[in-house]
């Protein structure tokens, strides 16, 4: 695919701002849910794997960390860009 086709659909500014407000509403879900799921995996490993000494749960520990780190890697620039947009709006 050429670079032009990778561009986003152009929208009028008013609609774009409305959409961004919707996006901001979703932000807590997009950012926090993966963290919660990651922590659940780690806690599950701790309670059912680490304490009784069951190695079958080790993959849950790694999965938990992958989800948390993977999300953190993209959440930081995403939140920065949202903050940048909010500053522009002011």
């Amino acid at each position, binding site marked *: *695919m050429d670079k*032009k*086709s*990778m*561009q*986003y*659909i152009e*929208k*009028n*500014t008013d*609609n*774009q701002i409305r*959409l*961004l407000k*919707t*996006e901001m509403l979703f932000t807590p*879900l*997009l*950012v926090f*849910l*993966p963290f*919660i*799921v990651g922590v*659940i*995996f780690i806690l*599950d490993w701790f309670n*059912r794997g680490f304490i009784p000494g069951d190695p*079958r*749960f080790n*993959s*849950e520990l*790694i*999965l938990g960390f*992958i*989800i948390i780190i*993977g*999300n953190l*890697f*993209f*959440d930081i*620039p*995403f939140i920065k*860009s*949202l903050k*940048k*947009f909010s500053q*522009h*709006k002011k």
Partner: protein
Amino acid sequence: MVNVKKKLLYAKKRINSVEFDAHWYRRVFHTFGASFLFYYILPDVDWVNLLKTWIPPLILVFVVILEFLRLKGKISSDHFFGLRMYEKHRVGSYVFFGVAILLLFMFFPQPIAVPCILCACIADPVFGEIRQHYNSRYVYLVGFPLCMFFFIIAWYTADVVLMFSAAVIGATGAVVGETKKLWWLDDDFMIQMLPAVLLLILWYIAMYMGFTLPGDVIIPGVI
């Protein structure tokens, strides 16, 4: 008097920031998909299994109806944030993403489904960033070991030969699925389904040859 030049500059700046934002929004939407792995930790009891069977297809049906209405022009594409130009007259990539995850949940063993979902949710945005900032060649150099890592985690309880075979085949499928882009078939679908189908073939071959197959990556919870 209104300063037109200043206003134009301000509008341009704002539009640029909006594009930048849509870019990161798409990336975060991808990584958010890893949360769906929670499906596997849900307890293995009758009423939960019933919900596990019905809720994901119902969500997908809703999304498909929404997309159908968008393509028919009943709902404007303006209401969908972060759509690419090529998605204006084509099924959006989020539908492909959802269809592939549902197929993995329903028809593939967990050690195949989990790493394939991770490839789409974590490796795909990493591929995208590498492609944007560096040469496409680095996609293979960084993406392949990253995908291999995901497959090794899921298959580490299997025989060593089988684990490495699965990691190489799975990672090759994921990288090829992501890099070979087709207008009508999204890479979000291919990055999941190509390695999954290849590994399913390997799964049956390994079963036939008597190899030790991997156990579940995520063990269902108990109530």
